[in-house]
């Protein structure tokens, strides 16, 4: 199997699993208990919190709380900020956010919040002018993803923070960093971030663990109320083995950043260049620059994405698609639509996302197979004249 769907989830690193095992077996104590047996569990959490603090360069480990996933981090941050100061009813986000944020905002709109959705251009880059013009004295929160999950396009968070703070110093910035953690360096202090969410399973920890950074100047009303865990900001007995696992994964990710930025990027570029060169009805759906190193989103014109994925799957290649048919939603990806990807290509868009476990041989195999798959599917398309015209155009 060749797994090129690492923006969906990743393989658990063996070292991560090993680090978790003692806490799944003998070290099962509740970290809140008083006896010595629970010391090792509570120390493990403390140590893990320190590692996550360093991973995103937070100032203090008190600013880190552990959650169950990226969606919980986003919900805690957004609802937490809004509920703490209910007077302000204006929020800003982007048209290309992850569904967990967009659906939450649609719910908030029904509850009387005014939401502005910032658009993107055809490269996938955010309209910063629209952002600047949208911020008012009433703006409680701006929530923006650091990189888009479908396109890999990175948004200039530091610049965005400067724009926000210059217009309204009280407006809070929540950054959904799920797609950048482990791919590019994160520095919450120099980037001017108030809240930031990450999810372990996107960087080789297991599913079911995430973290939320809340800087010391930002106050929230907790989402999950109960015990005193996580300084009262997130009740529930701590998931010790998974917290330890995510911390180990963050440690390895920090060490692997150079490899991501060089090797993973090189393989991604090799795959991208080869497909664009050898398949005449392919197009890059984004700009070339400002992307996380592991992701490429390519549109195949006049063919449909699910069918491409099914043929890839028959060869053991896993990727994902922005096509309507794969999700059952009937409409193609909201991200690609916001970018105005032409309708000839939007239904045939495929996202390839690599990881540090992706090998050269795997990429070579995919480079070899993709033209055959696309040719096979193109041959049954009713748009033979359009395809022929496209082929002639590319040959000139």
């Amino acid at each position, binding site marked *: 199997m060749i797994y090129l769907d690492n923006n969906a989830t990743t393989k658990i690193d063996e070292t991560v699993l090993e680090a978790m095992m003692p806490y799944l077996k003998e070290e099962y104590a509740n970290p809140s208990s008083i006896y010595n047996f629970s010391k090792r569990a509570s120390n493990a959490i403390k140590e893990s919190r320190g590692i996550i603090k360093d991973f995103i360069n937070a100032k203090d480990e008190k600013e880190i709380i552990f959650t169950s996933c990226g969606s919980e981090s986003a919900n805690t941050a957004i609802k937490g900020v809004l509920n703490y100061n209910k007077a302000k009813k204006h929020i800003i986000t982007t048209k290309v956010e992850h569904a967990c944020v967009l659906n939450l905002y649609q719910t908030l709109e029904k509850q009387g919040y005014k939401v502005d959705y910032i658009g993107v251009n055809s490269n996938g880059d955010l309209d910063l002018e629209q952002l600047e013009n949208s911020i008012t004295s009433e703006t409680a929160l701006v929530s923006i993803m650091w990189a888009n999950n479908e396109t890999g396009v990175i948004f200039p968070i530091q610049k965005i923070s400067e724009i926000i703070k210059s217009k309204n110093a009280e407006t809070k910035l929540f950054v959904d960093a799920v797609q950048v953690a482990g791919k590019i360096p994160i520095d919450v202090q120099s980037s001017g971030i108030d809240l930031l969410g990450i999810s372990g399973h996107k960087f080789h920890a297991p599913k079911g663990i995430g973290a939320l950074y809340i800087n010391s100047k930002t106050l929230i009303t907790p989402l999950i109320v109960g015990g005193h865990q996580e300084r009262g900001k997130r009740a529930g007995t701590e998931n010790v083995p998974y917290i330890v696992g995510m911390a180990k994964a963050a440690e390895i990710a920090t060490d692997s950043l150079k490899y991501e930025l060089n090797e993973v990027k090189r393989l991604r570029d090799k795959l991208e260049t080869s497909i664009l060169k050898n398949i005449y009805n392919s197009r890059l759906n984004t700009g070339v620059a400002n992307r996380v190193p592991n992701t490429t989103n390519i549109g195949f014109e006049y063919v449909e994405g699910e069918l491409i994925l099914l043929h890839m799957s028959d060869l053991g290649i896993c990727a994902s698609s922005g096509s309507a*048919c794969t999700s059952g939603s009937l409409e193609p990806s909201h991200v690609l639509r916001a970018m105005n990807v032409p*309708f000839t290509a939007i239904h045939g868009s495929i996202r390839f996302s690599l990881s540090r476990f992706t090998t050269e041989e795997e990429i070579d195999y995919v480079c070899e197979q993709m033209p055959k798959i696309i040719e096979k599917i193109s041959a049954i398309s009713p748009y033979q004249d359009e395809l022929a015209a496209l082929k002639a155009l590319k040959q000139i």
Partner: protein
Amino acid sequence: MWDYSDKVMDHYRNPRNVGKIENADAIGIAGSLACGDQLKIYLKIENNIVTDAKFQTFGCGSAVASSSILTEMIIGKTVEEVKKITNKDIADALGGLPPEKMHCSVMGYEALEDALKDYDKSEYEDLYDIMEPEQQEKIVCTCFNVTENMIWDAIKQNGLKTIEEVTNYTKAGGACGKCKGLIQDIIETYYTKQKAENQLSPTQRILKINNIIETQISPELQKDGGDINLVDIKDNKVYVKLHGKCSTCKNATLTIKRFVEQTLKTAMDENIEVIEI
């Protein structure tokens, strides 16, 4: 991952009858590139028999499979036989489709219908020339260009009852959702109309209930050595008499309530009450 049947997988992996027929006697098109799937079907018809069929499809696995199996289903059939094929026949031939994918079978049906219209037109070309241009069908869902007739057909052929089902079968209402009210109206109109058509005279109603008791209920009770017959009907109350083992069986009341009443309710209407005398 969709739970596709082996047949669906076989047909998208190895689609049959792909391509174009030059000098086709009929061509049918359904769907569009913007909507995410399109099917073109080409027919060769000789002496009222479909002698060849080919297709070209832009769409997902189930769209290709629906197109492919459709060509297999129609080759060798008479035009009249082909006209009777519904989207349900296509889905059934594939061993079923996931609910959200039923619209792929509908697309097959629509392309076939379009081809048959095209064929009729070429047969009676002179006649068409003197006829008034066909009235534009009323479009309900502007996102996916779905007409009232298409929704009506899907409800009729598949017994659809909710907006969600209509969306799964026709795509209507699947994007902006503005037409959901209209879809609800069509569903209600369809069932009101159907109810009116099904309205029986008192005599017809008695005969129908008696027929159900004799053909569906009595044989089942006979298997257990009992029997049942109709005594009287007053409004929604159906009076029956039990015979043989049934008349002394402790479970008789339960039998009547559960089985007899449910059978009659399903076949007639929900308000029927069965009373043993």
